């Protein structure tokens, strides 16, 4: 559905996008992960035909971004990072205006507006001016504005910035639901947990370059990080546990790290079962236990040498 090959864009001396290549299949949720200024928005702007590329090629729905701008714009929806809404108008009026811009009219327009209000759970607020909405409500309406003409592909540029966890969960559910209906989604974010929860495949972009690309498990496997079981015994028998655990299958190391007892292993689940047996045999109890799996944070840290929010 989306094909990007060696895409490049400069702003003066700054290479905003530098030789980026990736593809997004129909019905997929593809996450473009990276910190602010990494080149995510520029990439989306090129794919949405709002900016011309300086080099490389890109196509959306089989149409070239440099020559088929108008046709592409009819088939894509864009949800910008900003709250691109008319605050003085009602939710219904906002959707109505953009529906008309895309050629909807009469009953078809009314039905579509009603559907989107229902989908975003804003039906009962339809006739209230948007300026009175909460951040989460505005974000949901912002997404609906990109869907008013039922596009094939939706570009979401950090759609959850500045809202609370509950509102974020609702938005992620909303996107997941739309994807289940067949919508292809290109989702940019700098929230790792969102990308982990939502995306089928991920591209990590940094300084305009694509630093990693693949599905989540594959990427984590590629970085070679292992699980870690962190625990604290009620009685201080940590030295005995370290000696025993070091001999358990799949365990590479056991001991204290940064003030916490940790068992590093290939897979945390069998180690936890073995630990349970060890505790029972010696009549011991645990104060704390957690299994740490390598995630996108560790992936990002490994690739770029810094935490994502730095």
């Amino acid at each position: 559905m989306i094909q990007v090959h060696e895409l490049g864009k400069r702003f003066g001396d700054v290479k905003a996008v530098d030789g980026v290549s990736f593809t997004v299949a129909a019905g997929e949720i593809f996450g473009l992960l990276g910190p602010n200024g990494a080149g995510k928005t520029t990439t989306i702007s090129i794919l949405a035909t709002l900016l011309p590329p300086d080099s490389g090629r890109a196509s959306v729905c089989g149409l070239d971004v440099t020559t088929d701008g108008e046709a592409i714009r009819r088939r894509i929806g864009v949800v910008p990072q900003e709250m691109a809404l008319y605050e003085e108008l009602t939710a219904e009026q906002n959707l109505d205006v953009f529906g008309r811009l895309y050629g909807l009219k009469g009953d078809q327009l009314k039905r579509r507006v009603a559907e989107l209000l229902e989908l975003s759970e804003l039906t009962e607020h339809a006739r209230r001016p948007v300026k009175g909405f909460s951040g989460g409500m505005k974000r949901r309406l912002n997404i609906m504005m990109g869907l008013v003409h039922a596009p094939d592909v939706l570009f979401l540029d950090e759609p959850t910035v500045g809202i609370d966890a509950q509102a974020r969960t609702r938005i992620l559910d909303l996107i997941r639901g739309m994807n289940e209906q067949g919508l292809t989604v290109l989702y940019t974010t700098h929230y790792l947990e969102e990308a982990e929860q939502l995306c089928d495949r991920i591209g990590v972009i940094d300084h305009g370059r694509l630093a990693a690309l693949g599905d989540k498990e594959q990427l984590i496997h590629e970085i070679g990080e292992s699980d870690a079981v962190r625990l604290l015994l009620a009685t201080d028998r940590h030295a005995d546990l370290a000696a025993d655990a070091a001999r358990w299958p799949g365990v590479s190391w056991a001991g204290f790290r940064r003030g916490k007892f940790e068992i590093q292993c290939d897979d945390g689940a069998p180690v936890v079962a073995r630990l349970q047996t060890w505790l029972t045999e010696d009549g011991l109890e645990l104060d704390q236990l957690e299994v740490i799996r390598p995630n996108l944070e560790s992936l990002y840290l490994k690739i770029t040498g810094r935490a994502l929010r730095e």
Partner: protein
Amino acid sequence: MTSAVIRTLVLLHVRKILAEKSNLFWMFGMPIMFTVLMGMMFGTTSSSGPSEAPEVTVYDASRSAASGDLIASLGGREQYRIVVADTVGSEDLARQLVDDGRRTAALWIPAAFDDSLTAGRPAPLRFFFDSDRASAQTSRTALAEAVRRLDAIQGGRHAAGAGEFDQAVFDSLWAEPRVVLAATTLGRQQQEESALAGMSSGFQHTGPSYTLMFVMMFMLMSVRDIVLERRAGTLTRLRLGAASSTTLAAGLFLGPLLVGLAQAAVLLGFNTLLPSMDYGDSVATLIVVMVLFTGVSSALALVAATFCRTTGQADGMGMTVSMLMASLGGLWWPLEIVPGFMKQLALMLPSGRAITVFHNMIGRGWGLTENAPHLLWLVGALLILMVLARVRLRRLIA
């Protein structure tokens, strides 16, 4: 599709304005208040009773039956009081008396008045008045009309014989009067050809001028809206929905233009309720000047918006341009009373051109042909600004 997009953009602009109820006050309430209050300050004849009507001193060098009839028929009007001088005097004396401020207005009937009429030659009257006194201008207009009417009626009666009336002769003389009132403006301005001389009420200036000012001001204040659209991302959204940047530019231009025209129609309509308010005979000129001026203002706002990055800049730009265009363009005070170089400066501004057209319509009864230089100037300004807006906007949103 393009027309549907443009219609939607116009609808969007209307909805945004109606969503904020206070806009209606700024569009209509405020201009009406200014028009009435400032019009009263400039002066109006209708509120002044007969005792305040200016005195027109008549110097009758003809001393004939015809001049006697003329003087008798000029009496009994509220716009002026006729006082016949005991001395015949001379044209120079009549002029001098007004010039010195000893008379407000003087009508001099030449010795050959009767002979001229009898021979069918044009019979000129000389009228001198002090244009510093707005009420004297009123008497000039009323006197000119009275003379013209008298001439036509008498001509009609004379041609048809006793007890009859020849309408054809009346119409002919109404169109081309034999008795011509040659008016000379004296006093501070010395402007014989001033359009202001033909205006009799302050409302005749404040009505159109405050309409122009508030239409322009409301549009220039909308520079902020376009900047906000850019910053909020709605302009990008419009760009994605609109077929092309040209269509988008057309919609952003036409929305304010149509709202501005609606505002102008209401305000100009209200003005007709004011005393002595008459836009003249050329409705076409009225429509053309308002469409052109509103179009220029809309295009100017669009261009200005492309140069502003922040709302602070937009507010500053909108306010500064509005104030300069209004003050230098003769919307706060008539251009007829400012020095010549300021008048030349005003004619380099759309506001100066538009108010000059209005003054010509009201004070001189001019139509499209006579106002053509001003109207063509506005057409040129509109075309230049539209091209500039298109180029700037395209660069901004492409």
